[in-house]
């Protein structure tokens, strides 16, 4: 292997970040655990949504390693399934937002002129909005009133799609700015001129020649945004506006925790701790990747 290839250098720089490597390990473990969550269901012999009112809020035991919640559901299983939802929502929404941002940024940077001005004013305006209050309104709107068919409104997954959409329509701005800036400099390079010379179409140049050069900063930006998305999902679900029960998410597991502080304080600790560990791991990982891919930004 060529010891001076950019990828090799990036990997070498990344390996210096012990915290980022540790975070990556934490995240991989977490993903593996939530993937094998059904095995835990078999092992414990109960389902994640199985209510057992005779054993409400019992402490840790062999049958329930982390005890049960206020409806007698197994806390460990709910944490694992909640993790599935929270992680999957975070990843999907962050990628969706990045896709929108990339397309807007590419068009703004590549075509420039009036299109650029319009798109960037739009970006500035979205950045300047008080996001959380608006997200609460978006999460509260009645899907029947925007004419969605009843079957979709009542389906179980609708709260998931809603949250992904909400995050995507507000979260694309960072990537859009980043991609626009990078596109502006890359489009002046010789290989773009060469592509133009042989008659490549604009779309071809944008997506086949410019986009691949932007992948590393985009990956960094997505990694850094996942944490924020998970926080957003958790807070909306906490207020009852995100993922709807009985489907568990780390946010909605905390909804009732405030009332149960006396009886079962640990119910409030576990989900929040997992959100915290996940978000901080994504942030450390993103920070490490940033240093690895962009040595100029080194501190």
């Amino acid at each position: 292997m060529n010891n001076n290839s950019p990828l090799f250098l990036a990997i070498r720089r990344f390996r210096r970040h012990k915290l980022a490597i540790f975070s990556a390990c934490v995240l991989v473990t977490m993903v593996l655990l939530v993937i094998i969550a059904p095995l835990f269901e078999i092992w414990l012999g109960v389902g994640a949504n199985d209510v057992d009112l005779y054993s409400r809020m019992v402490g840790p035991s062999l049958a329930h390693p982390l005890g049960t919640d206020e409806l007698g559901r197994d806390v460990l299983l709910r944490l694992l399934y909640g993790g599935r939802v929270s992680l999957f929502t975070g990843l999907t929404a962050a990628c969706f937002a990045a896709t929108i941002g990339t397309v807007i940024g590419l068009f703004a940077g590549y075509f420039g002129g009036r299109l650029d001005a319009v798109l960037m004013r739009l970006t500035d305006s979205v950045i300047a909005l008080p996001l959380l209050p608006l997200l609460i309104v978006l999460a509260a709107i009645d899907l029947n009133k925007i004419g969605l068919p009843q079957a979709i409104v009542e389906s179980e997954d609708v709260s998931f799609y809603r949250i992904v959409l909400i995050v995507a329509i507000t979260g694309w701005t960072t990537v859009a700015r980043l991609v626009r800036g990078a596109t502006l400099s890359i489009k002046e390079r010789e290989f773009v001129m060469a592509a133009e010379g042989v008659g490549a179409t604009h779309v071809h140049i944008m997506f086949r020649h410019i986009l691949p050069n932007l992948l590393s900063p985009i990956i960094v930006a997505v990694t850094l945004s996942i944490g924020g998305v998970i926080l957003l999902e958790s807070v909306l679900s906490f207020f009852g506006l995100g993922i709807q029960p009985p489907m568990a998410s780390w946010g909605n597991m905390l909804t009732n925790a405030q009332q149960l502080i006396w009886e079962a304080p640990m119910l409030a600790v576990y989900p929040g701790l997992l959100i915290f560990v996940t978000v901080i791991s994504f942030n450390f990982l993103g920070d490490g990747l940033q240093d690895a891919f962009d040595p100029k930004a080194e501190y």
Partner: protein
Amino acid sequence: MRRFLLIRGLQSLVVLTIMSFVIYSLIGLMPGDPIDLMISANPNMTAADAAALRELYGLDLPVYERYWNWLTTALSGDLGYSRLFGQPVLDVLIPALKNSVVLMGTAFVLAVCIAIPIGTFAASKPRSALDYGVNLFAFAGISIPSFWLALMLIIVFGVFLGWLPAGGIAADGASLLEQAKYMVLPVATIATLSIGSYSRYTRSSMLEVLRQDYIRTARAKGASRSRVVWKHALRNAMIPVVTILALDFGYLFSGALVTETIYSWPGMGKLIFDSVMGNDFNLALVALLFATALTLTGNLLADICYAFLDPRIVIGGEKT
């Protein structure tokens, strides 16, 4: 400069107008409408009555006509009544605004007073234990879910230790100490989150400045290390930081929605949450627009600060 301000001001006004329409339409899409609420309050009402009422109040008109009716009334000074509080919207809004400014202002001052020194210390000794500590704390601050931090503080200080009230606000006329007691936990929550991001900005901006030639010159001329950091570098390092602070200025008035709601602090954030959740259309609309207007002002302020603090920046495109 004047031209720049004029253009940016107009831009903000356009955004605000567009947002007022967007928010108006979104609020119209929330479950139920005022007539539904009347129906649930009065079982004798028939479907024909409801339709007649909808027509009377103009609720059957298309959204842009309703918006126009609302806008002209609002601009003439009539913001309507709050359904939840049974008072004119402004009478509800102004006390909430005051409470938010007190809470957010205290948290803001505290966060700035802590974050800037620790960020500067961390940058002046890069890769020291202190630097790692500050960095870790900053990452924790931006990664912790605010509602969970609030819950944990309530569990520890409100429930188990019983030192501080778990939420609410002191009654009118309570002593200053009593009032302060209610503020400790919410202020700590908001400040922890802001200290994280402010100290990170300070640190990276400081590191950038310390690499400049004039810093080396100052050291070469015999200025002590701490004098260089605190006298020469800090002023320059503050330029981007002040911009970030100005950006947050708008939030001083729009409140911290999550923290205020969990601690039942009757500020703007809780007001927005309660009015959206409680189908209080008039109040939600005005409160949201107010928050938007203030955030836009904060952005404008950030631009102005940037231009004033850094004479190298010429705004308006006359010179680059």
